[in-house]
């Protein structure tokens, strides 16, 4: 018996039902044609990708420092560098907190917007779950407001400050490792991770800029009166300045202008020449966030009904996609009316979900092993959304019954394994958008590093194929293996490549009893 493994040049798809997928494939099949050098589309995303943002931030910090130093009599920033360095003053907030006051406490210590801390934690949670670990570590190692001992330091009878430092150090290491791991894990397709990271960094840059700028304006009321460009009714301004000592009263633009629709979103804009009429301090709430979430809830409900009644087979990505659209619209409204920044968090999550569901598509998720025992049990089509699909044609009692059949396997993300029966001439047409294909001749196939098409033909007499198997996968790997002895009892369900040995595209079949 001879197994012939050939790699074939780009082949135009016949199946119009998968036009879009195939169109995507064409780009890669060209790269895998014989004689062409393989194109590696790896995006380098290391230092070069991040340094612009870092330099921007450095520039921002430098700018702020300059501003501060040129106007020494404005009171300076509310939190000095020494204040920030003094970890012993770090406390979990007891008010304005969501869970344990970690984000609020950190934001007060570093004098940044708490939304920023929460967005960062959420982003870290998405990439490997570090956000949750970070939060828990901070929870147990940072004392609560009004106390000196944290949970851990109280339990261990150790210096609470050292415990806090240790906890934050461990947290930083965990965060770094998981983020690097998450990017590394998605190395073939780092773009989604990079886009979300870029969004988070952009939010960080924009929000911290806003905070810094406002910080300069929160000088004592007397100085405020001299400043011609001040635009805010700073009724709470002086208390905001002194709040460092009490560390309980809220500080910062995001609190002072909490929900103020008049000045709320654009408070940094001493720029616009907006001259305030003296108004009593008020805390009008913006309903934009609540209204948006309500609209999202209604939309999801309607889509759900639609999916179950009228529109059967609606793509899963419609749900997060519609949420994303609503969030986008609300944020654009919030550019001029009301406060909407918390929606950025919702938008980032919706973006990730939309991308994921678009890639994965519909279909069963998880680990599925098909091991038909008779030709009649073999389906024409196998689908998988995400996970691992194994089609094991080894145990068939009547492999000849598959003669003339064609099997389609369509999968989104994960691993597809096909075990082809040896007593049949089989053509496996495997295509991967992004990933790898392992066939009987492993070294040959792995050259298709970034995806491609590959045809494996196994035939006793090199005649026309009895069985055709088309495998289409977007992300992941396709493993094609073949057994020579149908019905071999010792066959493990988890098929490895080591079970066959191939040299130079041909091999001798082990003897079957």
């Amino acid at each position, binding site marked *: 018996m001879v197994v012939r493994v050939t790699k074939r040049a780009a082949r135009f798809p016949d199946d119009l039902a998968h036009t*879009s997928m195939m*169109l*995507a494939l064409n780009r890669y099949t060209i790269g895998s044609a014989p004689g062409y050098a393989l194109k590696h589309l790896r995006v380098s995303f290391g230092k070069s990708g991040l340094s612009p943002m870092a330099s921007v931030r450095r520039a921002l910090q430098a700018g702020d420092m300059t501003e501060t130093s040129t106007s020494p009599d404005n009171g300076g920033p509310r939190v000095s560098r020494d204040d920030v360095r003094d970890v012993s003053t770090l406390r979990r907030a007891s008010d304005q907190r969501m869970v344990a006051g970690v984000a609020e406490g950190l934001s007060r210590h570093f004098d940044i917007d708490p939304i920023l801390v929460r967005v960062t934690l959420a982003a870290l949670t998405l990439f490997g779950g570090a956000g949750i670990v970070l939060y828990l570590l901070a929870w147990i190692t940072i004392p609560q407001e009004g106390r000196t001992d944290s949970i851990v330091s109280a339990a261990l009878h150790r210096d609470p400050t050292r415990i806090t430092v240790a906890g934050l150090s461990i947290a930083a290491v965990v965060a770094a490792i998981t983020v690097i791991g998450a990017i590394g894990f998605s190395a073939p397709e780092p773009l989604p991770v990079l886009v979300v990271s870029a969004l988070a960094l*952009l939010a960080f840059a924009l929000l911290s800029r806003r905070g810094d700028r406002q910080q300069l304006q929160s000088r004592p009321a007397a100085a405020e009166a001299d400043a011609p460009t001040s635009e805010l009714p700073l009724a709470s301004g002086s208390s905001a300045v002194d709040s460092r000592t009490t560390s309980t009263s809220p500080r910062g633009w995001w609190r002072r202008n909490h929900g103020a629709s008049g000045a709320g979103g654009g408070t940094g804009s001493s720029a616009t020449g907006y001259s305030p009429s003296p108004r009593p301090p008020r805390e009008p709430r913006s309903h934009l966030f609540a209204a948006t979430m309500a609209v999202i809830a209604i939309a999801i409900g309607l889509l759900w009904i639609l999916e179950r009644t009228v529109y059967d087979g609606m793509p899963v990505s419609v749900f997060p996609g519609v949420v994303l659209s609503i969030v986008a619209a609300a944020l654009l409204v919030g550019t001029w009316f009301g406060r909407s920044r918390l929606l950025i968090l919702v938008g980032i999550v919706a973006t990730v979900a939309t991308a994921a569901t678009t890639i994965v598509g519909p279909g069963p998720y998880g680990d599925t092993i098909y091991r038909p025992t008779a030709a009649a049990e073999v389906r024409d089509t196998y689908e998988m959304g995400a996970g691992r699909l194994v089609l094991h044609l080894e145990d068939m009692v009547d492999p000849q019954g598959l003669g003339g059949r064609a099997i389609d396997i369509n999968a989104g993300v994960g691993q597809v394994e096909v075990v082809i029966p040896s007593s049949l001439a089989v053509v496996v047409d495997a295509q991967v958008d992004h990933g790898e294909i392992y066939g009987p001749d492993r070294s040959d196939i792995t050259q298709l590093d970034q995806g491609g098409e590959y045809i494996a033909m196994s035939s006793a007499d090199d005649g026309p194929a009895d069985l055709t198997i088309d495998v289409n996968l977007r992300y992941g790997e396709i493993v094609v293996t073949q057994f020579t002895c149908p019905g071999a009892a010792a066959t493990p369900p988890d098929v490895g490549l080591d079970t066959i040995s191939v040299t130079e595209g041909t091999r001798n079949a082990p003897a079957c009893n």
Partner: protein
Amino acid sequence: MRQHATDVVSLVFGTVFAGFALVWLLNVTDLLDFDEVWLIGPVILIVAGLLGLVTALRRTDISS
């Protein structure tokens, strides 16, 4: 609601998300294939960034 000064943060993220939503919509309706016109992704980010940059700088100019 009363109109307030332009909130650049909301503007930038609103633009980015609106762009992504549009791409998704075209993709899911098979009007375009993202793998073919992947350039639209970075273009959205660049356009949104420029928009935010211009808005932010313009406001800074007026103040100074």
